[in-house]
């Protein structure tokens, strides 16, 4: 069963309360300027982090925005996350970025901020999917009562316009009030102390927000209180934008040259080694050491009297034996020797390739004595 509708018709806070009172478990997904999913377990808010939406993690944004973790570290963490398939919170705990208590506090603060954002958005669609199975795989370090969250959010929504009035620009510069901080440290507590410590030098509001390790509203609130106690003072300031130098075109030209030269060098090396194999190696070999066989039989093989190991001569000798065997067989079955060796081949007493070899080797055949005898070569 799903509960869905438009926040105009039925306010989100009512929905929250409904879920809380009925102690429902499930996922409330809200489509507003930014989509968000809120997970409830038995009517308590567990998490606002949707694992299925990998591109956007409210906790990650929260950690980055308020300076818990800087951009480089976050890139590193993200790489680890994609390389290990672990949840961000697990990595943070394992790698001891935060203790479990710290993480719980951060987690809760992040939920407050997310709910605050959702509630402050006037137009939104919502849909509640009931069931505990949507909660599987959701890591939670806090379990917050809906009433508490709603009350806090409402307070922030009410007070935020006032904050905006006091701090209209992010470029405002704050510094310690020199008259008040002369002799001893003021007696401060919690968030105010953190902000005060950050102001060893003068700082912009933007810097303070992104380094205070607390929600924006809390920074504003602390600053407001510090201003009220007179410990701080502020002024407006302008900033110059840094210039960027284009360097892309230079790089590509360099790339092309980088690729061409090695290819050329490799080609030269290959050609050179081929030449070595073609000319130098045969030249280096002692005379008589042939590198390659000629492949064809030639008649110019010198005849040796006895045993030979010359492959060409061996081939010619066995060729002659083949022919004389063929001739004998021809004689045996026909009663006389053939006129030419071609007859022998036609009658299949020797094979076609053998006849070709015979012609290549220049072996001459002659029939004598009316077919009663023959001579070879």
């Amino acid at each position, binding site marked *: 069963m799903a509960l869905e509708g438009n926040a105009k018709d039925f306010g989100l806070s009512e929905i929250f309360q409904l879920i809380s009172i009925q102690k429902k478990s499930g996922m409330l997904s809200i489509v507003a300027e930014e989509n968000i999913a809120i997970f409830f377990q038995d009517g308590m808010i567990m998490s606002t982090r949707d694992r299925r939406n990998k591109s956007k993690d409210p906790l990650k944004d929260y950690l980055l925005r308020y300076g818990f973790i800087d951009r480089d570290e976050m890139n*590193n963490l993200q790489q*680890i996350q994609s*390389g*290990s*398939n*672990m949840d961000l919170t*697990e*990595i943070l705990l*394992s*790698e*001891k970025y935060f203790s479990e208590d710290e993480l719980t506090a951060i987690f809760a603060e992040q939920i407050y901020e997310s709910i605050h954002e959702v509630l402050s958005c006037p137009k939104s669609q919502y849909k509640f999917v009931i069931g505990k199975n949507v909660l599987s795989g959701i890591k939670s370090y806090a379990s917050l009562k809906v009433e508490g969250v709603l009350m806090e959010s409402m307070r922030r929504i009410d007070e935020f316009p006032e904050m905006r009035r006091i701090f209209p620009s992010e470029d405002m510069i704050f510094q310690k009030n020199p008259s008040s901080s002369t002799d001893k440290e003021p007696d401060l507590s919690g968030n105010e102390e953190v902000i005060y410590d950050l102001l060893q030098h003068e700082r912009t509001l933007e810097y303070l927000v992104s380094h205070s390790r607390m929600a924006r509203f809390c920074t504003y609130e602390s600053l407001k209180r510090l201003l009220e106690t007179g410990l701080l003072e502020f002024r407006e300031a302008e900033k110059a934008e840094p210039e960027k130098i284009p360097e892309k075109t230079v790089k590509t030209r360099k790339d092309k040259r980088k690729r061409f*030269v*090695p290819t050329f*060098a*490799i080609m030269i*090396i*290959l050609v*050179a*080694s*081929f030449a*070595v*194999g073609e000319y130098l*190696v045969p030249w280096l*070999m002692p005379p008589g*050491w*042939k*590198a*390659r*066989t000629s492949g064809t039989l030639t008649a110019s093989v010198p005849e040796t*009297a*006895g*045993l*030979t*190991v*010359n*492959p060409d001569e*061996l081939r010619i*000798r*066995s*060729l*002659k*034996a*083949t022919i*004389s*065997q063929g001739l*004998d*067989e021809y*004689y*045996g*079955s*026909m*009663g006389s020797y053939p006129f030419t060796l071609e007859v022998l081949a036609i009658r*299949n007493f020797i*094979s076609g390739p*053998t006849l070709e070899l015979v012609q290549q080797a220049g072996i001459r055949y002659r029939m004598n004595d009316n077919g009663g*005898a023959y001579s070879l070569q």
Partner: protein
Amino acid sequence: MNRLFFQEVKASHLYTALLSVIVSVAFCMPAVANSLDNISNPNLKEFTSNELRRGAPSLYTTSRVLYREAIETLESGDWEKAREKLTLCATISGDYADPMFTLARVELMHAHPDFLYHLIEGIKRTAGNYHRQSLLAINLLFLIVCATTVTLLMAMVILLWKYWRLIEHRINESYSKRFAFPPGRFIGSLIIISLLFMRLGIAIYASLLILSLWPVINKRERTALSFLTVLVIAFSLSAPFSNVLIPAVDEGSITRRFSMMNMSGVDGELYNSIRTIDNRDFIAEKDFALGTLNYRLGRYDMARQALLSSVSRRSDFPQAYLNLGNVYFMQADYNKALAGYQSVIAIDSTSALAHFNIGQAYINKMLFAQSSRALKKASVEGIEKYRAGHPAVMLRDLTVYDEGFPTTELWSIAWRESRGQNDILFDKLLRPYLLIPFGWLGYVLAAALMTAMVLSRKTLALFTAFNCENCGSATCPECSEDTTGLRLCADCSKTIRGLSSVKVMEALLRHRRQKVSGSRSSRKRLKTAFVPGSTWLMSGKTHRGIIAIYVEVSAALSLIWAGMYFPDPRGLPLTDPFFRVIFLISVILVVHLISLRVRPAREQKNFRVLPPDFRIDPVVEKETATERPASVEPKTNDQRFETFLDSL
């Protein structure tokens, strides 16, 4: 039958001699005697009887013509008739194996029970005479030499492929340190390709492969490679002995000319080929051959002269005495004939022919008791076996039997003849591929093997490379990192750099391992399917891999050589596609199919957990963390590395 015998023998002692002769001859005579009549071709019949008249000890050519006809009949489909013809040509020649095999095959295909007998007879005949034996031997030896060398090369090439990542890593790294150009990642392949382009010959390639592989391969592969290398070295160093087989392939050799005497009747060609032998070392044998030929032609005076000359030069030549005795026998000088035969017995008392001829001589001298004793002795020594093996002799209708060169004599002639030859045949054949003399190959390989062993003992840092213990990619002492207790490659250690949590590191390493090794194994599997034996070598089953390569290489070589490297020049060209093509291809296919079933190398499945006590706590445990790998870990790491290599 034996006309002389009937004319001159008195009836009183007839029965003893008759019994022994008739009983023994009765078995083979009818079949052989009929066989000449069974020859349908009148020309061939004429030719055959001419051959017999000219003293042919074997009817090789007749048999060949008949075999040809039989094959034609077989191809026309009339297998019964073909079988008759095959049987005829098998019976007419005692040492021609091909008809027996064809007969066996035809009978097997038609489920005839005789096929086994013919198959066995064929196998017996295959190595029946000197020429067949030596031809078979030289072909086998050459095949073994080539197959062993090629197997060694192939095994090394496959191992190079297997360990290429490691070797290339070292080349790449030591090169990149010095030069930036050309880029290091090309250098390994560039070296290989340019070496191939130089065509330096198998000897140098094999040595280079041994040298470059030795440091990276595991123990089992080293053993297998050294075994193959030692085999090749042994072949190379004993190459001069292979020359004893040259006469088998040299139709002009003295041995071969002598052996031709055992194959056909005397004609001008055969006579001249022996007469023109001018090697002084073989005068006794030459005289024996000429004497025997003349005897077969009935020129007894010339025969006697030659044989006497032969006997005077060589006293231990039973065949010469036997034939000399026959010459006297034919000239009716029975006492001298008996003296000749007795000389044979004095040298070789088991000569059935000598005993038989003695018996015949005694019959002519009317000494029947002695005759019957001698004939009995002849049958004890196996005169029947001789007759069965020499159908032509039976057709010649002889009183006394002469003998040509026996197989052992031809072998010893071949041995003596080849001793004068300084060049080595295998060297001539292999030089174009080795580029160095075959005899040197052994020294070159031995030097390479020794150098490799010495170098690997020193384990030069330059050569050591190993697999990353996580992802298996190549790494070396320089770029690996083992502070985590695992030897990790640069990439692996980069992924966990700066992390402290074991859990995160393990998750990262596991993820990386799956990514890297997964892609690698699938690629490797596809490629190994094409190279014989590589699946076994890749998965560490070295011995099986090398046997598979050996079998496939041998089959492939036989396929390339269309059967044998040295075909019998007087044999029919092998037209039967079964042994030449189908059998060989199916051997290759079968080995290949089996190799496809080999499971790919098992990448380490057990999740390699970082040591449990290991914690990089930068402040507290930094000292122990850096110290431990230096003292204790290398041992276990080495062992682990070994097992990892084995599991590859």
